[in-house]
C-alpha cells in the first residue's frame, strides 16, 4: 500500500490588491508625517487657556473666580510661624482671593514669569510657596503667595495660577500682570522690614 504524497504547501503570493493596500498605508503614514512636521500644532493644541488680568481685577476661570491683591516686597519674610526668612534676592508676596465654582477646589500650581525672562517656581511647600488649601464654593478663601526672586526679575513680572500642579494643558490658568516697576524692585531690595505671608484663611486679611 503506497502512502499518498504529502501535498505541497501552497504559497500565497501577494496580489496586486494587497500590494496596493500596503502602498496606500505607507503613503498615508508618509503624508501624516509631512503634515505633522510642516504644521507642528501639538503645542498649540495642548496649550493652557491663559486668562489675563491685573491686580485688583477678578478673573473668571473654569473652576474659580480669582483676585490678586496689591503685591508687597522686602528682603525679609515673616512666615507667621515664628520664623523670619532671609533671601539673597527679594521676597515678593501677593495676596490672593479664591472663590471656588461648582465644587471644592484645591489650587496646586503657581509660578512667576519674571521680567528677566526666567521662570520662578512656586511650590506647595517650600521657601517660595502658595498653599491655599481647599476652597469651598460660596466661602472665599484668602491666601498669600510668596516667592523669592532677584530684583531684576520684578519689573514686568506676571504671576500665573492654576489648578493642577503637574499639568496645566488645555485648562484655564490666570495670568496676572502685577504692574511692578524697577522703582518697586529698588525699594524692596533696600528694605529689611519683614513682609508677612501667613497661612490661608476664610477670613479676609486685616487692611493695614
Amino acid at each position: 500500500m503506497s502512502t499518498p504524497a504529502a501535498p505541497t504547501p501552497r504559497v500565497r503570493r501577494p496580489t496586486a490588491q494587497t500590494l496596493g493596500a500596503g502602498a496606500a498605508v505607507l503613503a498615508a503614514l508618509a503624508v501624516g508625517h509631512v503634515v505633522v512636521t510642516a504644521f507642528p500644532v501639538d503645542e498649540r493644541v495642548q496649550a493652557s487657556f491663559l486668562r489675563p488680568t491685573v491686580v485688583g481685577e477678578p478673573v473668571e476661570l473654569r473652576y474659580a473666580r480669582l483676585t490678586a491683591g496689591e503685591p508687597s516686597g522686602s528682603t525679609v519674610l515673616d512666615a507667621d510661624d515664628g520664623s523670619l526668612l532671609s533671601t539673597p534676592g527679594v521676597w515678593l508676596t501677593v495676596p490672593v482671593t479664591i472663590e471656588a465654582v461648582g465644587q471644592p477646589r484645591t489650587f496646586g500650581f503657581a509660578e512667576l514669569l519674571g521680567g528677566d525672562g526666567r521662570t520662578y517656581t512656586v511650590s506647595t511647600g517650600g521657601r517660595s510657596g502658595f498653599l491655599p488649601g481647599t476652597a469651598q464654593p460660596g466661602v472665599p478663601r484668602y491666601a498669600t503667595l510668596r516667592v523669592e526672586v532677584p530684583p531684576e526679575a520684578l519689573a514686568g513680572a506676571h504671576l500665573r495660577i492654576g489648578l493642577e500642579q503637574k499639568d496645566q494643558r488645555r485648562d484655564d490658568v490666570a495670568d496676572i500682570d502685577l504692574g511692578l516697576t524697577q522703582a518697586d524692585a529698588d525699594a524692596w531690595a533696600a528694605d529689611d522690614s519683614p513682609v508677612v505671608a501667613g497661612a490661608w484663611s476664610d477670613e479676609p486679611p486685616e487692611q493695614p
Partner: protein
Amino acid sequence: MGGAAEHEPGAPTLGRVSGPAAPPDLRARARASGSLVARRALDQPLRRIGIGGAIVLLAVTAAFGGLREQAEDGPEKLAVDVPVAVAPFELTVHRVVWTTDLPGQYLSDDGNRWVGVVATVRNTSDAGVLGVTLQDALTLADVEGLVQEPRALVPGVRATSIALLEDGSSLSPVQPGLSYEAAFLFEQDGSVAPPTSATVLLQQHTWRSGSLDPTETWWDPTTTLRAALDVREARSDADEEAES
C-alpha cells in the same frame, strides 16, 4: 546502570553539527516558494547565522557611535572653593564638617551627629528647580554609619536635608539667578566615630522628557567630579574668635 555514555567513533556530536539551522519542513516550503533569498537563508548553518548576526549588530552599534573613542575617562577631581558647573547648578564646595547640634535641624536619634558639606549653590538654568534635584547633585560616600541608605539611581548617599546657613530653612525651590550659602546635611550614627575624611560626589543632570511622561525635567544624575576631603569638627564663630 549509569556511567557516562561515550560517543561512538564517527557519531555526530552537538559541536560538530554544521547542517542548516532551519527545520526541514520550513526549508521545503522555502524551496517550494521559489524564493532564492529565502532558500539560501534557511540553508545556512546555525554557526554562520550567529556570526553574521554578530557582525550586523556590531555594524549597527558602530553606525551609532559604538566604536567611537571614549571622550571622558571618569569624574574629574573636585577642588575646594572652586565653582564648578554641574547642570542645572553651579556648586562651590567650601568645607566638610561635623557637629551634634544644629538649630532647627532634628536628628532621628539624639546620640547621632550631622556631617555637613558647606557649599555655595547657584541655579544656572532659566527656571526654578526643586530641592530633590539638588539633593541628587551633591552626595557623600566613604563615610561609615550614614543613616540614609544609598539609592539605586544616584551614586553615593543623598543629604537628609539642605539647610540655608542664613536662616536654617530648607533650600527648595532653588531659584535662578540667586546664590545660596547652604549646608548639605548627612546624619551619621553616633556609635560610629566621626569621620576624618569623606568623598564628595557632584552629579550633573540632563534636561529631557521621561520615557513614560512627555513632561521635560532634569534626569540622569551622572558623577562628573569627586574628591576625598578632610572632615573636621564644626566651630562656632565665637570659638574661632577665641582661638584667633
